[in-house]
């Protein structure tokens, strides 16, 4: 993923932590461990957090939801909108599993506050479907076997979608670099790169 994207994530993460919300669950839990016996940590309004209306477009439909200020975009997509194709893997902006498009640009939805998406247009993996019909990029991932377990696949495809919209005819090296922000532990990388290149070629025809 490009550098500026990562930088913006770090400040977001600090912001989330700053307001003391429980969103960074695992991280907060571990952070607390050494002081478990102390009762010093008292998150403000735990469980009673104020909710705010969020209006944004998701997969071309206008959506209105009430969200906590600390909720990430990934949480809202998965838990409130049941768009479970977006995966939370590291919740830390490191792996790309939660990649969605925000106004056409790839973002890590685990590192973005949902309220920051107000007025924006979000596309998730579910948004690439036209009825039951898959798009050429998804088709290429099937044909080139660009996956194994498939858990990182929605994130890979969304990152590839953004890459191809920015650079419709990338070289192999450009694809490898462009996709390097999305971890795949099964390491289907050569086939993921093949899939993206094949999709670019389909586009050419």
């Amino acid at each position, binding site marked *: 993923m490009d550098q500026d994207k990562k930088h913006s994530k770090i400040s977001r993460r600090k912001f989330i932590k700053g307001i003391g919300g429980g969103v960074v669950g*695992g991280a907060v*839990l571990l952070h607390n461990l050494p002081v478990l016996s102390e009762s010093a*940590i008292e998150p403000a309004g*735990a469980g009673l957090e104020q909710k705010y209306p969020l209006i944004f477009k998701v997969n071309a439909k206008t959506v209105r939801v009430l969200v906590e200020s600390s909720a990430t975009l990934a949480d809202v997509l998965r838990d409130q909108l049941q768009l479970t194709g977006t995966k939370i893997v590291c919740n*830390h902006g490191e792996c790309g599993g939660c990649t969605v498009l925000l106004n056409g640009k790839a973002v890590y939805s685990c590192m973005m506050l949902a309220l920051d998406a107000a007025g924006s247009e979000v596309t998730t993996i579910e948004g690439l479907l036209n009825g039951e019909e*898959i798009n050429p990029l998804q088709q290429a991932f*099937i044909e080139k076997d660009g996956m194994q*377990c498939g858990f990182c696949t929605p994130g890979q495809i969304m990152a590839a979608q953004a890459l191809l919209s920015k650079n419709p005819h990338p070289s192999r090296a450009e694809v490898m670099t462009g996709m390097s922000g999305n971890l795949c532990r*099964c390491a289907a990388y050569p*086939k993921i790169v093949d899939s993206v290149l094949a999709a670019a070629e389909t586009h050419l025809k």
Partner: protein
Amino acid sequence: MKKTFNLVGKPVIRQDGYSKVTGKARFADDINYPDQLFGVMVRLPIAHARIKKIDFSEIENHPSVITICTAGDISGSNISGIIKQDQPVFCDQKIVTPGDVVAMLVGEDEELLRQLAGKVKYEIEPLPALTDPRKALDSDAVLIHPESKSNLIVHYPLRKGDIERGFSQSDHIVEQTYTTQLIEHGYIEPETVIAIPLAADRSVKIIGSIQNPFTARRIVAQALDLPLTRVRVEQAELGGSFGGKDDTMDILSARAAVAALKTGRPVKIRYRREESVLESYKRHPYILHYKVGFSREGKIKAMKIDILADGGAYASMSPFVTWRSVAQATGPYEVENVCTDVRAVYTNNPYTGAMRGFGSPQPIFAQESIMDEIANQLGKTPDEIRWINCLHSGSITATGQKLEKHDVNLIKVLDTAVQKTNFSRQWQACKDKNKSILPFIQKTHASQADKSLLLESEDLVAPDLLLRKGIGLALSYRGCSLGAEGIDAAAAYLSVQPDGSLYLVSGLAENGQGMRTTFSIIAAETLGLSVEDIHYLELDTGIVPDSGPTVASRSTLMGGGAVKIAAEIVRDRLQKFLCDFWKLNKQDVLCFEKNKVFSESDPQKTLRFSEVCQLAYRKGVCLAAIGWYPGPKVDWDESVGQGAAYFTYVYGCQVAEVTVNLGTGEVYVDRVVAVHDPGKVINLLGAQGQVYGGVTQGAGYGLWEEISSADGFIRELNFDQIFIPTSKDVGEIVPVFVEGDDQHGPWGAKSLGEPTLELTAAAIANAVRNAVGVRFFNLPLNLEEIVLKRKLKPGGLKRGSAV
């Protein structure tokens, strides 16, 4: 044996492709139940302590806490373990590693529960933390599990020939110590499980990211004191496992089940990455001491091997992991005199268990490094030294087993790899070049050791000379399936419907490797159908016999064998029915091809497969069958480590080409040629995927990955610090398959998943040696290892952007 195939060996797209590219695949955390609760763990921040009191008073009346589960809620056995029973579902006596869980808070608001978990008070008696496995067997070592009376988990001796005579017959002896590191599986999907109480008969259904549903069922039933039939485990789509979603998931399933029965509501547990890394088991770090005697011609005369494995806090799979090590520690070489001792010990470190490779990557790194050292010492090339010693048909292995009744393709994979890479010439050329740089490296390593950075002017090297090329190879044999580890059999259930479509499911589990597609190909090939005719069912312990675990690269061999048998049973019934129907001789052979059935002798007699099924169904022919594939007998004498360890073997050779930057210490993997004999390739796409994945994971193991811990606490808890390879980190990977005949497995198909991983780190290490002229003994070969020849482990400090 069938000569031509319609599907086997061809590239077949995976059956689950559509669901995975659309985000519709149902992973465990995508499944929710109405009225569902969450379970959140309570841990104590210590590696070793006796628990005196856990005090929930501050939170137990909190309206969001519906219940708190502890050891007291376990009606059956609180102590679990697949081999050795030593791991509590909830700790109530001792904490032996920081991942340990003392209680689980259950309620609706997961985030709030995570905060409340920090308010649990406790009284403990801290005990000294044992973190150095080399001290685990000292007489004054603190006991991790006092009931075991020693920190020894297991000791396997292997004695063959006369080791002293072997050394006395040797012209040269090389003696070296190698170490390997702790690493995390890093499956992309963190652990998730849901337990649903079924009130009607006090039973429970479990759905989760579970690698081995039958093992999970056993552990849950044991904890709840229920018959196995009252626990039904369904596997959700699994987001990677690599051996890692076994013990941890079994225990998580038990915790969720206890809470579900206690509250009468579905209970979900889902881990965040940090919690997953903290609690789950890892790959064993090994300390390997090898002493090898050989003749001046290069023939190995004797090998004395001492291996110490850090099992961490619980035994887990250590007894089986180290058993594979003892069987394979000499590598694929004929050695007359062998004396091997492998020990696994308890420490307060994170516990270690099954991980892809399973006790083979560690000894392969040591043994293949030593083979190259011997070659260097004798002025031979690495392929020459292996030629002299490698196993062939009729050879006797270190365990005294004669290799027979299958193609022993070791020399064939070696030759193929050597030819494809022009190995000997490249290796010699790089070796000649590295002579000029060697004094520089030796000097920097020496100066690093005494922490002085001053170099003489004649030590300076032009920057472009710092980029060194090298090539290295590694060779292995691998026993297929479980071997003498345990009972080895697998089942498949196949049910043909009256329209000719069919259900298929095996007792083994899809872990993302493409097993469902492979099994569908096997069924389709046998019945002359296409893969689309087969509907692969979700694995559920209620619908198919227990087939043992999905481990040891045994799925295609064992489960695939069972699928073929099931399909053959149905085909034979249809054949018999049609012979009657067409009034043919019983000896007449019918062909099942391209969705048709026809008689070879009388081409007029042809029917579509669907028509045959319709007819047979109406005549009351049973069109469903269970195929059962039992592994052949193996035998093992544990006192001397002798016997037929495995019923068959696979062979592999990988060649790595690297560039080493001596300035930064970075090793670039330019190309890996991976030559494997998996017996028979069933799905070419799946087989290639296994090679890409195994090689990349093997490169990560060789170069970057390491979980370090201070006083038992893991420093690297997320992917900002655990460096798993990205799409840019490994160069070209070239899979090459050499097929060999075997009487076992479907059409001789055996194993591939693990062989692809076990060789890569060793091949890279040998390539680095070739590039720079220096041997590195400690994995991973990261920047500091190359530049400083030592590891930088800041005491207690976190690396990277700590949370």
